[in-house]
């Protein structure tokens, strides 16, 4: 059992997962950022692998990825940076990114490196369920990696059940039909959709992401799920920060700590 599965086994509530882009704002910020995220009290870290053509991402994550690539970030370098992260980081860590860099690296090789570094799970949004089942599932599972799939308001019930079946950690509930970072707020449509998912009594826990930006939206969605994922708002804060570690800790405490 990996750290993610252990975490979710205790049926936790109000989990905060934080997404950031590797190699941003500076090339070697990856590990210091992770330490600050953990220190602030987040429950899960998602490291974004930058990609030249991130079609599911809005302007904030696009810009951070572009900066990271300009800084010289590569997947190979990322594995070097996080090689000994487990000396410092004990919360679950996922890698999130597009399939092309993974395929170039070699899927088998990638899975092995993930295992060596202590990665617990993967979110590869452009990996189709069918290809996962037929090509990748074995490789990832045999290296102790959980694969996380997305569900959106447009996903059919039948497909939600398929995703539930394929899930061994949590389902990523995308809050609205949007790219990352879209600030649509949480309207009645979204609450309906969260309720519908709750009513489906899925086997898998859920985290809600996209458009979650502060304590208010965090608390609002935690009522319908096991927690939430914050990405673009976190990266916006990083981009504006002059004191990264301190600001990260403060940002997370403001969301997580009881008032």
């Amino acid at each position: 059992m990996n750290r993610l599965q252990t975490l979710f086994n205790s049926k936790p509530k109000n989990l905060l997962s934080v997404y950031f882009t590797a190699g941003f704002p500076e090339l070697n910020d990856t590990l210091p950022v992770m330490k600050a995220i953990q220190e602030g009290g987040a429950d899960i870290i998602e490291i974004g692998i930058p990609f030249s053509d991130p079609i599911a991402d809005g302007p904030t994550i696009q810009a951070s990825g572009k900066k990271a690539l300009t800084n010289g970030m590569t997947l190979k370098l990322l594995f070097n940076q996080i090689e000994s992260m487990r000396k410092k980081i004990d919360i679950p860590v996922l890698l999130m990114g597009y399939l092309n860099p993974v395929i170039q690296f070699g899927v088998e090789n990638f899975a092995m490196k993930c295992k060596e570094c202590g990665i617990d799970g993967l979110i590869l949004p452009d990996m189709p369920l069918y290809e996962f089942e037929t090509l990748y599932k074995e490789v990832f599972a045999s290296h102790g990696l959980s694969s996380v799939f997305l569900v959106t308001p447009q996903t059919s019930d039948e497909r939600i059940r398929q995703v539930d079946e394929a899930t061994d950690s949590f389902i990523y509930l995308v809050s609205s039909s949007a790219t990352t970072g879209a600030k649509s707020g949480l309207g009645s449509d979204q609450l309906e959709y969260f309720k519908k998912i709750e009513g489906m009594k899925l086997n898998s826990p859920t985290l809600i992401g996209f458009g979650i930006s502060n304590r208010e939206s965090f608390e609002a969605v935690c009522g319908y799920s096991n927690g939430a994922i914050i990405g673009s708002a976190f990266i916006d804060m990083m981009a504006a920060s002059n004191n990264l570690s301190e600001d990260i800790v403060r940002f997370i405490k403001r969301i997580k700590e009881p008032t």
Partner: protein
Amino acid sequence: MSYQVDERGYYGEFGGAFIPEMLYPNVEELRRNYLDIINSDDFQAEFHHLLRDYVGRPSPLYFCERLSEKYQARIYLKREDLNHTGAHKVNNTIGQILLARKLGKQKIIAETGAGQHGVATATVCALMGMECKVFMGEVDIERQKPNVERMKILGAEVIPASSGSRTLKDATNEAMRYWINHPTDTHYIIGSVVGPHPYPDMVARFQSVISEEMKLQLKEKTGSPNPDAVLACVGGGSNAIGSFYHYLDELDVRLIAVEAGGMGVNSGKSAATTQLGGMGILHGSKTLLMQTEDGQVTEPYSISAGLDYPGIGPQHAHLKSSGRVEYIDATDEEAMTAGIELSKLEGIIPAIESAHALVALSKLKFAKEDVVVVNMSGRGDKDLETYIKWGKY
């Protein structure tokens, strides 16, 4: 061996639908419905009516006497340049907009590089009274001004793509992002045989009218529906697939695709994807792709804006790896020279994309009695500025 798509959306090991979940319902809706719609009698009737009366099909198959003399073969041009809007692109946009209407979509988006597909999309949207947004890289907007204005006159909104390298691949990214954010009322008209399944197959079917007509016209002119060779240029690959489609299983017909070599394949400024690319995933399909060792997509270069795409349709990747189609390249210099030569010999100024196909005439050996068809995918009007800058005419 099959050269067509299988039921999972693959051409051999290439193809598939590598899309984020946000796009899945849209692409799945298309996949479930496209064959039934395209094969229905009323769709076929309307499609062919518009191709005839609006586009001006069948496009002529023209025997080039002077060009044949020069290259010592029997050379025919398939005149897609005479279509309404000046290129083959309109065959696909007519098909897709009819399909979008059947699916109940009210709005259309498209990407464009040179602006030809954008113009062809804006045109059919005007025809059908549908709202049209065309995404175009900021760099391309700058170098293809007349087409930008044409789209605006036709009532389309041209949205500058300011992300990434600000060219065709980024315009495609932006169109996909817009589609993610507007999933229910919008259809995305992709301009070539690229993208997630079923796009490559759907666009190929709409463009297959090119080789369907070729067969009839050749039979009439030469006595046989099959030529010895068919030549076409490749950007994403739609005019080439359209020209090859009905010959893929006729193994005695040589099929030759010409990619943009740019300043030379090894110059670092090229768009010869099958030579420079490796297996990768971009815009929803597994195909050949120009990329770094780290899997970042690289920027292609060609003098012709319609050919500088870092990928190639998955069917082409399969036709390349199976050896059914020969892929060669033509440099900027060779293409410009061939374009000017055709202008002087036959009175036809070709699009610079299409001029790349002509280069194959001098690179390959044909027998004097060989029947060779070159697909003239478009006319050179849009490229006048590039011809003028090039000079040497």
